[in-house]
């Protein structure tokens, strides 16, 4: 009883604490100067229409590198926790014919869609993360449809490791080709024509590798959870 009372107090307290945030929120009608700089900078400096991508991949690229690392950590952590040698082999149940056919028809399309999303991240909404998730969702679909589906672990790990390393390398190329201040600067490749696929320097390249990395990581997590939770 006393515990519920305390929980109640805690929740009311949190609500009270958040109240000034709502009260002082107001409505913004203008961008912060910094945001303004990002929006115009993405066009003038990077020749990139999608300013969110400009922020994610270039201006705050270090965050994104960290983010990829976090994802890697999650994969490694889940794998480390669940991949014990003496795991119980799950009793496998096959999906229905209907599901299997549907899944095998849809999966390639979904993967292609995912690839499209991460290669066009600098032009339209989306990017490496979104694309990667879409790719992984295709894998998930296959897993759900046909439980006997197995991964090529080698390929998965290889693409995981390599895409991460290439991402770091692409960042370092900035330092090598442009200057010490230019880690993750994509401007060592030509800027290209505005609104075309091969524009904005190395951004599409970087985002593609992020896409591959994210897709591989998420698939790997699905793999780990799937094999563990098989019973």
């Amino acid at each position, binding site marked *: 009883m006393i515990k*519920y009372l305390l*929980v109640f107090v*805690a*929740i009311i307290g*949190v*609500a009270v604490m*958040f109240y000034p*945030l*709502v009260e002082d*929120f107001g*409505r*913004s*009608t*203008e*961008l*912060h100067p*910094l*945001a303004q700089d*990002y*929006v*115009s900078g*993405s*066009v*003038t400096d990077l020749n990139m*229409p*999608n*300013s*969110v991508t*400009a*922020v*994610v991949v270039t201006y*705050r690229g270090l*965050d*994104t590198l*960290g*983010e990829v690392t*976090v*994802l890697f*950590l*999650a994969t490694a*952590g*889940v794998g480390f*926790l*669940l991949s014990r040698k003496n795991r119980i082999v799950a009793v496998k149940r096959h999906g229905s014919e209907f599901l299997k056919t549907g899944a095998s028809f849809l999966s390639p399309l979904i993967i292609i869609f995912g690839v499209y999303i991460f290669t066009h991240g600098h*032009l*339209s*909404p989306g*990017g490496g*993360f979104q694309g990667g998730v879409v790719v992984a969702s295709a894998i998930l679909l296959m897993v759900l449809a046909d439980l006997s589906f197995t991964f090529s672990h080698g390929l998965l790990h290889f693409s995981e490791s390599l895409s991460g390393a290439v991402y770091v390398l692409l960042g370092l190329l900035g330092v090598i080709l442009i200057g010490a201040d230019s880690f993750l600067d994509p401007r060592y490749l030509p800027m290209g024509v505005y*609104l075309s696929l091969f524009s904005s320097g190395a951004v599409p390249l970087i985002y593609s590798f992020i896409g591959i990395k994210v897709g591989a990581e998420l698939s790997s*997590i699905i793999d*780990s*959870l799937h094999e*563990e*939770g098989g019973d």
Partner: protein
Amino acid sequence: MLVLIGGILLVIIGIWAMLARKNIIRIVIGFSIVDTGIHLIIVAVGYIQNATAPIIDSAVPFEKTATDGIKLASKVVDPVPSALVLTAIVIGLAVTALLLSFTIRLFKVNGSLNIDDYEELKW
């Protein structure tokens, strides 16, 4: 504004789930709800009235100004929170995934998901 309040409500609901539910899975779900609420809050923070997505393509014409900047024909929302929320989502996902794996292991080792069954360490 509405999104912000919705986000805060979600956070509070999530906190309630974390504090009052006994099943570890539900507590983890509570945590996810808190996370989602926070993501909504972040998005709400970046919103500008009557503005569109910050993608400067044919939908948002612009002209270059003398000071090496650009002048947009219509308002766009702040791209920074959108970028931040991406990171936040990924991190939330990572934590949730790990929490769930821990729960699975714990269930395998001990066969219970009730958080009250794990009070051996205390004082």
